[in-house]
């Protein structure tokens, strides 16, 4: 079984984010592997561990796929040190400012070029927060789409998940090939071991550009984005509210506030 895990490098969740000409300024902040993608890497590892392993002598492979600037290699390295086998990074100056449509186009193209049975993604990136790329990849490939998985079972060329969303819990099943996304409750991602970190340095990382994927630069990046930012403005920091220390009448003061604000 060959598994692809799509990951993204994002600004650290805790760092202050700034806009620059309508796009996120990615230069000035620490970049990390998207938290939610660690669960996808972990789930891939658990699936292969239950089915004959990966790496040398293993029956399966895990390939990490990422699109982003050159330093994306750092985030990819983390996934490799957790235990993935190889990586493909798509990097190209023309990709800057790509929307979800373009991102899914590029990732789908890479996936098409491999022999993958299963693609695993996190549910969203902590920076863009759209939650659409996994579904879009499945749509572009015309593969089964099994997203928001709270559990995944792979058996004899089929995958069954429980889909956990605000609409309840659904059990869904499909034959390979399939695209799944996993929620953060599904597992506890492992920390890379020292051995894993050392091994990751020798794992193959293939760098591709748009030309090698046969994608025209006009279809991606700011030029190919089918939504345009009219303006982006920082929001004024919230005016400081009232803060009181409970002296035994805190609950009453709270009710008074609700009355003034006409909630009561």
């Amino acid at each position, binding site marked *: 079984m060959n598994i692809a895990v799509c990951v993204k490098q994002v600004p650290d969740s805790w760092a202050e984010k700034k806009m620059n000409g309508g796009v996120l300024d990615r230069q000035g902040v620490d970049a990390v592997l998207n938290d939610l993608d660690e669960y996808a890497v972990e789930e891939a590892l658990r699936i292969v561990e239950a089915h004959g392993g990966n790496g040398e002598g293993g029956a399966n492979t895990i390939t990490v796929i990422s699109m982003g600037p050159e330093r994306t290699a750092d985030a990819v390295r983390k996934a490799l040190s957790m235990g993935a086998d190889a990586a493909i990074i798509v990097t190209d100056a023309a990709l800057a400012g790509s929307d979800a*449509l373009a991102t899914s186009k590029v990732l789908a193209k890479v996936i098409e070029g491999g022999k993958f049975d299963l693609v695993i993604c996190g549910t969203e990136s902590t920076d863009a927060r759209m939650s659409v790329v996994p579904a879009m990849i499945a749509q572009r490939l015309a593969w089964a789409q099994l997203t928001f998985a709270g559990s995944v079972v792979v058996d004899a060329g089929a995958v069954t998940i429980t889909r956990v969303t605000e609409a309840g819990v659904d059990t869904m099943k499909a034959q390979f090939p399939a695209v799944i996304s996993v929620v953060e409750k599904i597992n506890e991602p492992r920390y890379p071991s020292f051995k894993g970190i050392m091994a990751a340095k020798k794992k193959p990382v293939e760098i591709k550009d748009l030309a090698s994927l046969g994608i025209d630069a006009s279809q991606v990046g700011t030029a190919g984005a089918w939504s345009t930012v009219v303006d982006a403005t920082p929001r004024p920091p919230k005016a400081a*509210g009232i803060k*009181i220390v409970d002296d035994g009448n805190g609950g009453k003061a709270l009710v008074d506030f609700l009355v003034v604000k006409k909630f009561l």
Partner: protein
Amino acid sequence: MSEVFVLAQFVGDKVAKTTGELATCGARIGDVTAIVLAAPGKGAALASQVTSGRIAKVVVIESADFDKFGVSASAAVLAHIVGEHKPAALLITSSAFGKELAGCIAVLTDSGLITDAVDVSSELVATQIVFGGSSTVHSRVSHGSAIITLRPNSVTPDLEKSSPEILNVSVAVGESAKHAEVISSQPPVAEGRPELTEAQIIVSGGRGTNGDFGPVETFADLLGAAVGASRAATDAGWYPHSHQVGQTGKTVSPQLYVACGISGAIQHRAGMQTSKTIVVINKDPEAPIFELADFGVVGDLFSVLPQASEGVKAHKS
């Protein structure tokens, strides 16, 4: 005048308030056609409830495949009619389902996509609040029909009632949308409280409740509020995951959000920072959640909340 599609949403067999919110935005842009996707035989009963806001037409499409094949089947059908009618926009409520649906339709119809808008103007400019509430972004779709998902509770629905013409249309779901099959579904348990994303008031509890949501629920019920929870509380099994507010839970923007024993981690804020008024009860004066508070009480929730509940009762009587 241009045509705008809105996807009617239902909770069980009742129309959701968000349908009126979509229609309200849609009517600013053009003539609104509400689309109802229903199981066979259910369409008429659902369509008859789609009356809030200025709606010109309701189009009902029935198929057993919607329940059976999830997002893919709905996307295939909606993409088909969007391709046929080329509306100026298709508005869908933001949710896990709604956003994926929008994404698939954008791919299928070669259209631009904007998710999590909090408003859409008559010029089809969408407003989004991004990066932990620190920036407002206005954007517009520049290709195809504008596929936009709108956050629940962001727009005040027009109270006008319409009596739209109801049309039944049949669209077959193609084989390529039938790869993943829903084997069983369990709807969320109804608890007699308002639905979290629709609620005007939400009272949430975190690790500070220490597993006792009693005072939170009592206060919520007195205010007619929904109950939310932080991830610490859902992870501990104190409250169901379906009530989690935050990045990997629900995004809410009620008129009033009361955070009790919640520290205000960035992932929690991501789900509630657009709430209109925020009240905080927390023992720790340094808790970051106070940065968002319009009214904060530094104190123990187990004394502040019961006193506040008594106060509400006294006020009502």
